[in-house]
Every structure is written in C-alpha cells, then in structure tokens.
C-alpha cells in the first residue's frame, strides 16, 4: 500500500536528514546508511505511528519496500488495534 511506503520513507528521511525523493521502494537500507539496528529503530517508530506490534521479522528486510510490506502484513493481521489507535 502506497501510504505505508510513504510513512516509512518519511521516517527514514527524518532520521537520516535527507531529501525524501532520494528514497525509492527499491532503495536498499544498507545503501542508505541504515544497519539492522537502525532498521529496528525505524520499525519501532512505525509501531508507534501505526499502533501495531512488530515481532522479530522472519524474512530478510533488505529494501524500504520490504519494511513497508512487513508493516502492511501486520496492519491487516492486527487491524483491531489499529482501529483502537484511531
């Protein structure tokens, strides 16, 4: 979903203090300068934003779109808590 990508992109841009437009769905996190811990930090912020809880991911998180997909999947599974948040 485009909105999720947009939110992740904003979180990353804010953290790295870079222009949002330089981040695409295919941007590799490590190329952006985000190591695995930084990625967890972004996911942590996304948890607050979306009102969901993200368990340790099973699949490899490589790109910005991977983060967005992970969040989308959880958003569907944990929809009730999202509504509570809203």
């Amino acid at each position, binding site marked *: 979903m485009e909105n999720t990508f947009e939110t992740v992109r904003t979180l990353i841009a*804010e*953290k*790295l*203090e870079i222009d949002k437009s330089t981040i695409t769905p295919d941007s590799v996190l490590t190329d952006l*300068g985000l190591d695995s*811990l*930084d990625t*967890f*930090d972004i996911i*942590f912020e996304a*948890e607050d934003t979306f009102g969901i*809880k993200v368990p340790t991911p099973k699949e490899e998180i490589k790109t910005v779109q991977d983060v967005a997909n992970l969040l989308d999947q959880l958003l569907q599974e944990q929809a009730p808590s999202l509504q509570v948040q809203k």
Partner: protein
Amino acid sequence: MANTRRVVITGMGIVSPLGNTVETFGLNLMQGVSGIKRLETDFSDQLEINIAASADFDGTQHFSKKELTVLDRVSQFALYATQQALDNAGLDADSIATDKTGCYLGTGMGGAASTEEGYHRLFKEGQSRLKPFTVLMAMNNAAASHIAMHYGLGGPNLTYTTACSSSAIAIGEASRQIAYGHCDYMLAGGSEALLTYGTIKAWEALRTLAKVDEQNPAASCKPFSADRSGLVLGEGCAMFVLESYDSAMARGTTIHAEIAGYGTANDASHITQPSVAGQARAMQAALDNAGLAPEQIDYINAHGTGTPLNDATETAAIKQVFGPHAYQLAVSSTKSMHGHLMGAAGAVELVATTLALQAQLLPPTMHLQQPDPECDLHYVANHATPEQVRYAMSNSFAFGGTGGVIILKKS
C-alpha cells in the same frame, strides 16, 4: 618510574559547568565563577535539593539526528571533548587510527538518562516496548566504544567505574599503556551525565548533598569551610591525549604537563565513609610511583567534596602522608565551582591542575569563609593565588573506597 617511558599530556578537551572549552573553563575557574545553579527542569519542583552544576550543552548543535538516536548525553560529551583534545594535541585522524591508540574512560552511571527513560516508559507510561537502542545507550562502556569507532582506535579500550575516582583511575591506567610502551597514544578521561530525576533522588536519599545556600545558591558547595553541608552534583567530561615525552618532542607539539606518578588503593573499610589510612595509601602510592619525596609536592587539587566527613578525612590523610610539609603546600577544592562530576571529577580536576601548573596560578576554593579546626591546612581560599609550582597532586576518592591519585610535573 625506572625503565619506563615518560608520559606527557599534549591535548585536553572539556565539557563542564564552567564552559565547554579549556580556555573558558580556565578563565572561570581562576576567577572563582560558580557553575552551580538552580535546576530548571520539568522535575525541579519535586526535588528537595534543587541545585546542580549542569553543563550548557545541546547535543543537537553537534550531532546529526541519526547519531543522536544512539548517543546518550554521556557519549555526546565524550565525543565532543575528545575532538577538542585531538585538535589541541595537533593530531589528525590518520595519525591515531591505529592499533597503537587506545581509549580509557571513567564513568559512574554511564547512560543514566537512557536507563531512566526506559524505566519511565515501562513503569510510568505503562508501555511494553523499549527503544531498540536502549541497551547500547545505557551501557557504561558506550562512550569509550563510540570514541574507538569514530576514530578507528584499534588499541585497548576500557571503561573504569569506581564511582567518583573513575576518571582518575582511567587516566592513571592509560598513562601506564604509554609508560610501558604498549601504545603510542592514549585518549583518556571521564564523562558523566547523571542529572536525571531518579539519580538526583537517589543522591538526596544518601543525605550527602549540600543544603541550598538560599542567599546565593551558587555558593552552596563550601569545601573545608566549617559551614559546609555536602556536595553538589555536576555533569560534564574531560578528555586528554597522552603520549610519550619522546613522541611529543619528535612531533614538536606543546607539552601541557608530565604525568609523573599515579597511585591507587582501596579503603577496604566502608562503602561510603572515607578512611584516612586508605586515602593516605593512595597518595603514598603515587609519590612512590613518581619517586618523589613528600616535600616536592607544592599543590594538591583535593577531592574536597564539601561533605563534613570527606574534607576532614582528606585533611588528616594529607597530614599523615606529608607530615610538617602538609602545612606548607597549597590545597584547593575546585568542586566549590564546578560541583562534583562523579565519574568525570578526576578528569575535570586534572584539567584544573594542569592549568595551575601552566599558569603558575592556583585555582581557589570558593566559599571558604569559616575556618574549621579539623581542616587546618593552607587552603587557597576565595581567590586564585600565584605560586611557583613544580609538582602538583590531584586526589580522587570514592564510594566503594577506591582512591586514584595523579601527580603532574610542570613541563
């Protein structure tokens, strides 16, 4: 120190309640300016003792947002002071990015604010998750590790935590890495950032904090004065560049002072009460290490916390070590101005001691107005005093009993 190399200080950097450059710190120190003030925070009104010596330091001015997500205030201080020290020593990044450069740092509480923020989220806000970086920000060795990572220092990297003597121990032990030839350069010092609600409350409970001088809060810490009532918590950091005398001469860099001796000993008696015998042992160990007679010491920058017990005990210990010379040498406690920086105290006071040697000017013990029969040495009281000083001693003692004493020689 036979068969070992001479160790010298060639760089200094500081973040302190008296300023964030060595120059500003020195000017304020010699003019008797106090960095102790009322705390203005969101928890101030919940404190019984609402004063501290905070550092005017805003991390957002010096670090990126990404850096700040992993740097507790204690590590921010350390990185900022280290860069100053390297600039001061005239060392560029390439010369120190080797396996022969190490970093020893002292801290008492490490990332106190991060620890507290974590507990606040869990217990106060009722959240069930903590920031992913909490452990990495809170751990005591974070500051030294960040220095190693930032500058590529592949040599020894150790964090000493012996409460109020932590940084004296770190610097003393680092000097041995140079003396024994294990390292070319050592970055050594201490950092402390513990002015959090929980930490101040814990100190309040110990009943060692100074009562607020209502007329003049800045004068609340009164070491060696009969009306002293305790210590004032402070925060900050000081970092040094240490290298061998030959290395400094070969580089043609300014030598600020020589580390002539270092000694450490434990009271082995009580967790808080200082011991005359223990403090005396630490001072004697430093004298022995330097190969000096007591009569050769001209000035002592005392631990001088301003608690009734410490100042009387330290005075008695100085008399035990120095005999009649105890009344000849000059003593001051600069904690009257910059407060007690805990794990950073020894480092900040070693900057003060170095400046005293360089300027041949002794920093004052401020607010020493009422003589105490138990504190009857030649204290430098209320005004900086010009004095010829060749050897100066800096004392650090601590809860837990570990004393760290460093002797500097004028270069």
